[in-house]
């Protein structure tokens, strides 16, 4: 039983350790993408209407959402097509989210959820200000690149 349990790779901190290592490698290989400082954007009536990068690709977006190294969204949300990755339930289920919200609303949610709900526990994926004690490897870097945000938004938008 010990053997079986300890081989389970699902637990959060172990996964986090793996994540940290993978990010480290990713940084060296593609530092340009990840080190980018978030660009300015405009919030209008609860939306970011203008895209932050090229048109998003839902297939890439799904990969980001389910990836331990980048989005890790399933830590808190269940997705309808998640391939059995065991989801958390700190946040609402994502099925139908593309019908509930338009692209601009989804974009603001992902970019900086605190702009929608100041108490939100959902991390701001495209913000670097107002954070404390960030580990050196991630300091000054947003969780996602502008293109990854667009990809995620494109993926969420088609969950109808």
């Amino acid at each position, binding site marked *: 039983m*010990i053997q079986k349990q300890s081989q389970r790779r699902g*637990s959060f*901190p172990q996964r986090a*350790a793996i994540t940290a290592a993978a990010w480290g490698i990713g940084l060296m290989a593609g530092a340009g993408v990840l080190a980018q400082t978030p660009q300015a954007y405009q919030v209008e009536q609860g939306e970011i209407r203008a895209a932050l990068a090229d048109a998003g690709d839902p297939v890439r977006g799904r990969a980001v959402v389910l990836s331990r190294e980048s989005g890790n969204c399933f830590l808190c949300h269940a997705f309808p097509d998640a391939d059995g990755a065991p*989801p*958390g339930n700190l946040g609402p289920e994502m099925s139908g989210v593309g019908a509930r919200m338009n692209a601009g609303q989804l974009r603001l949610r992902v970019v900086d959820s605190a702009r929608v709900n100041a108490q939100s526990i959902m991390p701001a994926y495209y913000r670097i200000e*107002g954070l*404390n004690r960030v*580990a050196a490897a991630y300091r000054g870097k947003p969780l996602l690149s502008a293109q990854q945000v667009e990809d995620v938004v494109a993926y969420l938008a088609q969950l109808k």
Partner: protein
Amino acid sequence: MSLRRLSLGLFAALVAGTAVAQTAVRPAPLKSGIEFTGAEVRALQNDEFANPAMLWVLRGTALWTQPAGKDNRSCASCHGDATTGMKSVATHYPQIDKSSGSLINLEGRIQQCRERRQNASPLKYESEELLGLTAFVRMQSRGMPLAISIDGPARAYFERGRDFYYKRVGQMNLACAHCHQDNWGKKLGPEIISQGHGNPYPGYRLEWQTMGSLHRRFRSCLSGVRAEMLPQGAPEYLDLELYLAWRSGNLPVETPGVRR
């Protein structure tokens, strides 16, 4: 008001929001982390022969009677039989150390005896020896309710620990309280979030495949939210340990615990 002013205002409110003093609260009802694990983990923890942490306790038992340092004295030379000499001692830690006036945890107290009373070299925080001795000493309080004092000079440490507990940290911008106070019982990925008590430590985590200190567990959670980690034994971690011990109310010491 322009959109830009509006959003700047919101941001300022957010930043200010993190500075509001928090009131210390205990989760209700209090539940030890063992209640959130499966039956197999519970069985392991409760079975003296199957509990993998007992290996470290055995090591601590041996160290207790092993002479060390210049004067060749063992812990037992002064404290005698640990089952009586160390009974319930761990329920009062962390506490204010009278000699220095600052906060000390059980690991720190053991180190102090090793250095001052045995004249022996200090042990590394996460060493097998210190884990073993700490687990052995804490086990003499197994099943006894924690009884922490936060009065007098301990108060300032307690308040710092509480502030740490409620402070958002890391790239994921989460505080301990977001998971262990506001969302215990919910799932983070496949993992059920417990109330985050320190009562089973030092303990064996299956995910670590070894024994670890409470401070090692702090580092795991902080690395999970991509926050800076401090070395085990850091003053901030002592503050946090005191806050946690208070927050655990009268939960019993479970050392040597087993967790996923």
